């Protein structure tokens, strides 16, 4: 399993814009967070046929 692992123990690349400096791995994670957020927002939530009560 260790041999199969992809090592990330090497220097990261950085996105620099003015005083902002974000590592590419962080940028990828932030992108994934946004994608998951919008998927959770837009994908239909499992529902029951009819609401009960009232």
């Amino acid at each position, binding site marked *: *399993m*260790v041999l*199969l*692992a*992809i*090592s*990330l*123990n*090497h*220097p*990261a*690349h*950085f996105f620099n814009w003015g*005083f*902002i*400096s*974000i*590592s*590419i*791995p*962080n940028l*990828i*994670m*932030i992108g994934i*967070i946004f994608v998951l957020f919008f998927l959770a*927002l837009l994908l239909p*939530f499992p*529902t*029951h046929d009819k*609401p*009960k*009560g*009232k």
Partner: protein
Amino acid sequence: MSKERNVDLAKWSGPKRPYDLVKEFVIAFLVVGLLVGAISAIFSSPDEPAVTLQQWANQAPADFVATTAGELAGTTISAAYGPPYNNAAEGLKLGPLKIQKWAGVTIPVNPAVDFVATPLKFSKDPSVPAALAQWNGASSDQQLKWATDYSTALGKAGDYTKVTASDAYGPVPTMATGLLALAQSDVLDGLLTTTVTPYPSDFTKPMLFLADGTYFDDLGAKQHLHGDQWGMMNETGSYPGQSWLWLFSLWYQVEPFKSSENADIQIFALLMLLNLGFIFMPKIPFINRLPRLIPFHRLIWRRYYKENNL
């Protein structure tokens, strides 16, 4: 106020639907568990070897000797820090609030004694005991003069091997090079981690000593771990770091925090203030009207609004 209380206490008369919280928890736990296991197997985890005093002494001996002289002169970060290590300064302040001074010296550290003089008792160098005796027998003014003069000479020469021997430096060169030999032989790491307990579990002293030199500082800068490099958000290597700390990290990049000696406590206070803003958001004019201007919640609960024609 009474109207709000009534709303809170009133029995819900709107539509209801069954919801299996346990089922959702189990599914979420299994999915997240499988994802964590799979990603850990594929990418492993950060594996940055710990920086040792021996490594520092071997790879940057000039910096090690200069830092040792600085410890004796009382000019290093830890020597001049103040509480919780010593009384050399007042520590972090928030305006008139001297918070670290009030907390007092809870982890006493005297760099000249703890990092240099005490470990040197274990030196095998035959010239060290005499140097130590000369140092311990001198007045504090004399000690300060020797160490400051040697530090100045090191600063001008750039390397301890280029500094011409002189009585003006007293025993300081012998002590500094004696400590260098002790570190290079891998003895100093053990000596500084076992001063409190026999087990090497307290790394306060070697960490402070390391942080006083430029070697460790440069290693951090290469990995983008400095505060002014958004380091709070970064991890070693190419692993993603703590991107959720962006709001803390942001303030270290801008003035007046960037150049402030009390940035840590100032930014902490600012974030606490912003948190109060979150807590009292329903009471803040304009902010509490934002959901009406930006009806994002209607997108989240769109089914409810649609079913009830709201």
